[in-house]
């Protein structure tokens, strides 16, 4: 028993040391991955402080309770020749140890209430971003005029992590930068602006969580939940989906890049320019090779999760693309299936630009040894939407 207690006391001490050392820094790594990050938003600081307060109260109570227990275990044992006492109640003592915990709880509830009221106050925000959870990626839509309205994109696990995380990939995750915590296209926001995050989901429950921002919230299909962030320090912040959402729940990270106001404005301008260029691209014909090359990228981030990087699928769950009837059948049916979905297959008409849709269909018909030889041009996609 004593050994266990010593072990536990050791753990608490480690926790104590690191809790103090960690304040202000980011999430720990390896043996230092011990405590909540203090974070970079007002909410996250408040929540971190609250966490430390209740942790210390618990440590205090723990020392008292375990101290009494250890004293008793050492001194009140039969081998010491103790004659057992016979008392079995003490009303005063029992009232005391009912009332004192009650008072401690009230002392904890007051700061908790204050923090929760602040966390819930999403009023007077400077801009709003709508976040939609999909199996298994995030969609970000900027809704505020003058702050990037109209920017709308999907964000999914980056290709390197995706390759390394496949069963039996033989790639050492340690060699992949930000393994499982990196995306193809991160969310970008300005620093020091109060940003209201609206959350919803397209298919099943998800939860949007960046530990450095202090909170997580569920994304629920058919409902909108919200929260707010105001990030003080520009930088890159990483998080993950926190609500079980199916096979690839562990593989839909969140990356937020926080830029200074000026840099953010430049980013918005660049995104707008890209959007315009994308519209122009949609009318530009592409060669088969160009389509296949582009399609391979699109496939890796959109299709490979279910259908496999080599188009092999998962028997009796996800159909193979390699040698499939669809990929080798009429082009029109193939395009319609990709754009409009069927049963468990999601509709990709909103996920993919015309160029991406044309590229991925062409890749599926010509990659994996399908070698069908035909292709579809971006300009022809609109007709199927």
């Amino acid at each position: 028993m004593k050994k266990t207690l010593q072990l536990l006391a050791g753990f608490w001490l480690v926790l104590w040391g690191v809790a103090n050392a960690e304040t202000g820094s980011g999430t720990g790594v390896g043996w230092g991955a011990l405590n909540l990050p203090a974070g970079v938003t007002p909410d996250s600081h408040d929540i971190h402080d609250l966490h430390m307060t209740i942790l210390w109260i618990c440590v205090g109570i723990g020392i008292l309770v375990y101290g009494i227990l250890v004293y008793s275990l050492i001194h009140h044992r039969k081998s010491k020749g103790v004659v057992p006492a016979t008392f079995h109640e003490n009303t005063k003592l029992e009232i005391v140890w009912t009332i004192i915990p009650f008072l401690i709880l009230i002392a904890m509830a007051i700061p908790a209430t204050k923090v929760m009221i602040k966390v819930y106050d999403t009023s007077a925000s400077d801009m709003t971003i709508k976040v939609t959870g999909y199996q298994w990626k995030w969609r970000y839509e900027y809704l505020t005029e003058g702050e990037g309205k109209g920017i709308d994109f999907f964000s999914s696990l980056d290709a390197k992590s995706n390759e390394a995380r496949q069963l039996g990939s033989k790639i050492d995750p340690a060699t992949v930068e930000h393994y499982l915590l990196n995306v193809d296209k991160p969310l970008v926001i300005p620093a020091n602006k109060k940003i209201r995050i609206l959350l919803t989901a397209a298919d099943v429950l998800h939860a949007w969580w960046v530990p450095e921002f202090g909170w997580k919230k569920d994304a629920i299909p058919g409902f909108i939940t919200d929260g707010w962030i105001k990030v003080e320090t520009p930088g890159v912040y990483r998080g993950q989906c926190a609500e079980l959402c199916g096979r690839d729940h562990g593989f839909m990270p969140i990356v937020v890049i926080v830029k200074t106001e000026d840099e953010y404005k430049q980013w918005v301008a660049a995104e707008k320019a890209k959007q315009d260029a994308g519209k122009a691209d949609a009318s530009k014909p592409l060669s088969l090779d160009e389509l296949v090359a582009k399609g391979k990228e699109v496939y890796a981030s959109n299709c490979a999760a279910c259908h496999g990087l080599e188009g092999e699928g998962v028997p009796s769950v996800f159909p193979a693309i390699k040698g499939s009837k669809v990929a080798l059948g009429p082009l029109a049916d193939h395009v319609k299936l990709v754009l409009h979905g069927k049963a468990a297959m999601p509709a990709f008409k909103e996920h993919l630009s015309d160029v991406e849709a044309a590229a991925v269909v062409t890749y599926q018909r010509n990659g994996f040894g399908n070698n069908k030889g035909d292709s579809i041009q971006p300009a022809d996609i609109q007709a199927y939407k």
Partner: protein
Amino acid sequence: MSVTTHDDTHAHDHHDHGPAKGFMRWVTTTNHKDIGTLYLITGLIMFFVGGAMALVIRAELFEPGLQYVDPHFFNQMTTLHALIMVFGAVMPAFAGLANWMIPMMIGAPDMALPRMNNWSFWLLPFSFVMLASTLFMDGGAAAAGWTLYPPLVLQTGHALPFTVFTVHLLGMSSIMAAINIIVTVFNMRAPGMTMMKLPLFVWTWVITAFLLIAVMPVFAGAVTMLLTDKFFGTSFFNAAGGGDPVLYQHLFWFFGHPEVYILILPSFGIISSIIPTFSRKPLFGYSSMVYATASIGLLSFIVWAHHQYTVGMPLAGELYFTYATMLIAVPTGVKVFNWLATMWKGAMTFETPMLYAIAFVVLFTMGGFTGLMMSISPADLQYHDTYFIVAHFHYVLVPGAVFALFAATYYWLPKWTGHMYDERLGKLHFWLTTISVNICFFPQHFVGLAGMPRRIPDYAVQFAEFNAMSSVGAFVFGFSQLIFAYVIYKAIQGGEKASSEVWEGAEAHGLEWHLPSPPPYHSWTEAPAQALISDLH
């Protein structure tokens, strides 16, 4: 199965008859001890089945990257591990203890409703075979977590109706067991055995039984709504049809929170029996223990949404559930203080049951602290759905409920079999288990706080060290349990004969210690003498 064959004390008693012979004895039995044994063995088998699944999980999580299983299979493992441990291991084991001990403790010959008792047990093996068979169906077993949240659970393949029907059968079984316990305790107490003289194990089980009757139908209803949403076109949980996915969560946790107390209240009863015996002192604060248990039972109905702090409840809801949940700390604290006061100035010895009981007090309290931390809704916005909660509920369920079951087994095994178990092996089992359970679950607090979500088959490399440590602990813990199975087997086979009292001074702590070891097939065919009851602490 020589549980009762050594018993010759009633050979000439014509009112008493021994068990039928062979396999049919177990199929047709209506005897509380036989049924108790069946429940306990089922619990132990399912403990190993659920444990094997846990080891699949921990093997995959030993290092970053996917080495052994597909993520979809991993999700089936987490789902079935939880369902099997909750409904297959812990609940049947407690039902087994109730069957064995309650009639002996209250001075009754058997349970009140013996035929229903038989049925409530025999539903279980079929339910678990059905649940296990879903692993081999198209699309695999349910993979949406033991909470079976829609819409995800509606993506389950052929397994969904079988999973739902399993829940129905388990619910029927639990409700029947609960009715039987309530009827037995209310009607079959020996004269003089007033309610406020009942051992705490009986009290905690009576309260547990009321919780079961209140909430199992809610769970059955919720999963039936899943079934109709999937197959009959209803939209209870589908927003596109006017329903609400969060409604399911409210229904589930209205069942789920009392359910976690169903898993822990009988443990409180066990610990309250064991600590006084080995402290050689009466239990401190008996009546406050009873009231605390009843308060915990009542509070369990009004705190459910603390499992849902992140679903976007109104602020008032968040605050209400925070305050209500924090209140649970008061009666739980009373229990821990009472156990400490029972040990205080006692003359303790440290046989295996006492070691497990002390470890329970220490480690369950640890789970209590993290529970208190998570009751604070703003802080829970960070803790929710991370490994911090995984650590929390494993601390209350493994060194909590499961340690109480170990303690109970070692405590009453000599009574059941008539033989002392091997104390040396028991202590070895204790130390290996207690050290490994901490190596397994303590680091999970750290990775959870540092940002590792639960229910993921693979993780970022900064969590590698503590996950490796956790997996090592899990494997040592898992294999240590083979010692436990062997100790039980050995005690059934033979060993030093146990006296009726078994533990020094135990006679003052319960009527079961006045019956021979092993006890007669029908426990108290005549009411125990008044003096026995009035001499109880």
